[in-house]
Structures are given as C-alpha cells and as structure tokens.
C-alpha cells in the first residue's frame, strides 16, 4: 500500500508548476513575437502587441545586426569570456594548488590565502573609479584591461574552490611522481591539474556566466576604446534607437541567444557548476 502511493506522481503540484512556468515563458514569448513584427503591426492594444506576427521575417534581425555591429560585439564577448576562462582555470588552479598545499603548515601561505579570499568582500563600486584611471595610465583601457580585471575579481572565489577541492587529493600521488624523478612543476601539470578536472568545469561555468553577462566592468573600462561587448551594444543601441521596439527586441533576442544555446547544449554541466560553486 505504502509503496504504491510512493510511485504515483503528485499531479496537482505538477500542474501548478507548469502553470508557474508562464512567468518565465511570457517575457521570452513577448520578446520573440515583438522581434519578428513590423512597427505597423504594433497597435496600442494588448492583442496588437502580443499576437503572433503575420509573417516570420528575419529583416529586423538583419537590421539589428547591422546597427549594433553584432558580429564585432559577439567576437569581443567571446574573446573576453574565452580568455578569462582559460586564464582563470590555469592561474587560479595553479595558485590554488600552491596555496592549498602549504596553507596548513606555512604562516605565509595561509596569509596569502586569507589576503586573496578577503577580496571577495570588496565591491566593484570602490575599485571602479581608481581602476578607470589606472587602466588608462597603463595603456590597457581596452579588452586586455577588462580581462585582467576579471581574472583578479574572480580569483577569491576560484581560489577557495580549488584549495577546497585539493584537500581531497592525496599528497601520496605527488610523492609517487617525485620518486620517478619528476619536478614539482611537471607533477602539477601532469598529475594534479588533470585530476582537478571536475573543479575546472565548475570554475569555467561560473566564471563564463558572470563574465558574459557583466556590464559594469567593460562599461567603465573600455567605453573609450570604441569596442563593445554584447550587453554594452544593447546599451548604446537603447540610447540611439530606443523607440523602434521591433528592432530593439530583435537585438535583445540576438544578445540572449548565445547563452540560451549554450544552456540547452550543456544544461547539466551548467546546473552542476552553479550549485557546486555556491554550496562549497
């Protein structure tokens, strides 16, 4: 009796949850239909705004791509996110290894650990203005400066994740490699770095999501460089063509699409990564 009850689905809750999805689907639906419509189809009534477009024409998208310089913005976003993720995985895991292996017995490494991790408490708002001056003075008020900033901003979090993960990797593995005559440097890259693969995935996912969607850092640092990231392109688009909503929504949809596709393809890795990053 009891076993039978357990196997049954809870249909009322299922139905409630499916209804609740409307709050998520509606804004996306609205974005899609407006993006495909022509301004003449947009009447002031709800039906005019939310009905399906008469024809599914991609002309708004072509125009939005041209106006926002979509391919360049996309390339910049991909470049910034890609390089930041690679540098984070390489540098943060390396420093995570060096600090994680020594912080228990060395005062200095423990201090270095606390020093970097406490950086988590520093809001961007206080770094913003000095960083703008600094990157300009050092000639890196561009993509390079933005990438360096990201590598530094995500270091506290990632160091904590890597150092925490390292605790579960036995030192005996390294000692075995040492007996075979491998240097510490080789041991790290050949043995420890590959073992940390699950953590690399977590770090890559959370760093990539945060960097891709970040607005403030590129806004203040590379605003003078004439280069845009995908979110920044939406912002300059808003100020220039904000009233042509069909064009605007085509542009928003284009900006949302890369991550939506990424999410559909690697949903499992993203969910795992996000949970691991938050819970550990």
């Amino acid at each position, binding site marked *: 009796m009891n076993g039978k009850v357990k196997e049954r689905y809870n249909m009322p809750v299922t139905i409630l949850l499916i209804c609740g999805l409307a709050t998520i689907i509606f804004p996306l639906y609205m974005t899609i239909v407006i993006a495909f419509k022509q301004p003449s189809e947009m009447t002031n009534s709800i039906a005019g705004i939310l009905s399906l477009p008469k024809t599914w024409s991609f002309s708004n998208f072509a125009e939005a791509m041209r106006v926002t310089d979509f391919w360049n913005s996309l390339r910049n976003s991909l470049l910034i996110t890609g390089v930041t993720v690679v540098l984070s995985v390489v540098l943060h895991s390396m420093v995570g290894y060096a600090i994680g292996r020594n912080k228990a017995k060395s005062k200095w490494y423990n201090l270095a650990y606390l020093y970097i991790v406490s950086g988590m408490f520093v809001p961007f*708002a206080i770094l913003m203005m000095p960083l703008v001056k600094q990157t300009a003075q050092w000639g890196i008020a561009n993509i390079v400066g933005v990438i360096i900033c990201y590598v530094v901003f995500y270091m506290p979090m990632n160091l904590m994740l890597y150092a925490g993960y390292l605790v579960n990797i036995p030192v005996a593995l390294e000692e075995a490699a040492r007996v075979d005559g491998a240097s510490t440097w080789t041991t790290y890259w050949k043995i420890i770095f590959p073992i940390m693969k699950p953590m690399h995935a977590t770090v890559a996912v959370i760093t990539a999501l945060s960097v891709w969607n970040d607005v403030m850092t590129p806004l203040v640092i590379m605003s003078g460089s004439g280069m845009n990231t995908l979110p920044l392109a939406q912002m300059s688009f808003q100020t220039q063509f904000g009233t042509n909503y069909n064009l605007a929504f085509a542009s928003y949809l284009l900006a949302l699409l890369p991550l939506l596709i990424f999410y559909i393809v690697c949903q499992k890795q993203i969910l795992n990564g996000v949970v691991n990053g938050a819970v550990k």
Partner: protein
Amino acid sequence: MKHANDRKRTFMLMTIPVVALFFAFNTLPLIKGVIYSFTNFRGYGSYDWVGLRNYIDLFQDGRVGKSYLFTLKMAVAATIVTNVISLILALGLNSKIRFKSTLRGMYFVPNILGALVVGYIFNYFFTYIIPAIFHTTSILASSTWAWVGIVIVCAWQAIAMNTIIYISGLSTVPEDVYEAGSIDGATGWEKFRSLTFPLIIPFFSINMVLSGKNFLMVFDQIMALTKGGPAQSTESISFLIYNNGMAGGQFGFQSANAVLFFVIIVAFSVAQLQFTSSKEEQL
C-alpha cells in the same frame, strides 16, 4: 634535500606573480580609492586634500541618504520575496512530479540571461503591457512604486539561482526523517517547520548571503529600468557612485561614498558569517 628546494621554489614561483597581480588590480585601486576619498578630485585636473570633509558631507547629503534608503529597502524586499518563492518552488520541484528535470531546467533559465537585457525587456513590459491591461500608468514612472518594479525584475532572476540551491539542500534531507515525522503525526507545514527547514539552514544562509549581497550591489537593473528615476527615487548606491563619480565631477566625494559602502558590505558579510556559523553549531 634538492627536491625539497625545488618544491619550495616552484610553490613560490606559482604564488608570487599571481598575488602581485591581485595586489595591482584589487588592493592598489582599493588604496587609491581611500586616498581619493580625502580629496576634492573631480576626475580631471588638479585637486586638494580636504581631510574628512567628504565624509561629513556624505551624512548631510540628501541624495546619498536617499540612495542608501532605497538600496536597503529594495534589498530587504527582494531578499524576502526571492527566498520565500524559491523555497516554495524548490519544495514543489523536489516532490514526486512528472517532467521533473525539464521543469527544473526551465525554472533555471532566468539565471543565465543577462540582467541588462532582461531589464530592457521588463522595461517594455511595465511601460506598455501592464498599463494596457490594467488601464493604469507605468509603475516605472511613479516615484512611489518604481522600486517595486526593480524588486520584481531582480527577484525574477535571483529566484532561479536560489531555487537550485534549495533543491540541492532538500536532496540532502534523508527520506527516513519524513517517515519518522509521519509516525509522529507531523503534517504539512509542521513537517516543514520542524523537520525540513532546520536541516536546510546552511542552504538558507547561503541564499541569504548570496541574494542579500547581490541586491545591495544592484546596478544593471537600475540602468535598464529607470536610470535612477523618477525624481532620483531609484538610485542604488552603485548607480550613484557610477553616475556622479564617473560623469558628475564628484570623483572624490563618491570615493568616500564607495568607502562607506565597502565598510557596510564587509560588516554585512561578517555578520552573516557569524550568524551562520553560530546557527550551524547549534545543530
């Protein structure tokens, strides 16, 4: 011996350059920010030391005070709304439902979308759709209600994240706890309050810290929805520092504001950590 030296040297070579990089792009600007806060720097040209002047002005400046009140009000409301809804959602998504993984996957979608673009989409929703349905004016145009719009948009995205964390918390609650509870005759709300909730308190505190801190630093949503208006009623602290510090010629003054904000964030984080660890010890 030779190996011990190699190990030591390699560890140092791995650490020192990265720590130096961290210093150059985190600690150095932080120190500079504190220094600027004692000057009347406008962002260009020459400047003088003004001692504590900026800090005294900070507490007498109506606009700054208003932005702190708004940020706090918004953060508290959004944290409560987000956590209540995500907890309910997580309980639903953790029960025996059909299409479990699809539903979980769908409810997470808002979290991966960029806050700025989401803000622009909701801006349209509040400006055209809501008024057309209810024959009212847009809440974003009302200085009394615009903050509610910001809470809704912030919560819409944050709920996705917090729900996933609550789900991972609920999945750590062992089945037999419920069975024992059922024998004792515990039902529904009682079961949740006295059995489930105490077991997921660590996840509750993660969510409180995560959402609380993010909401205090809100920026993108303000940029997309109201740009601080109407009548400066929705200027968050980050937005004010950006707006007046970068373009408004208040570089020095807003640096002082940023220092104060930094102190508040640190105090908030430390308090949260203390609270969390004392709660966990009790369990």
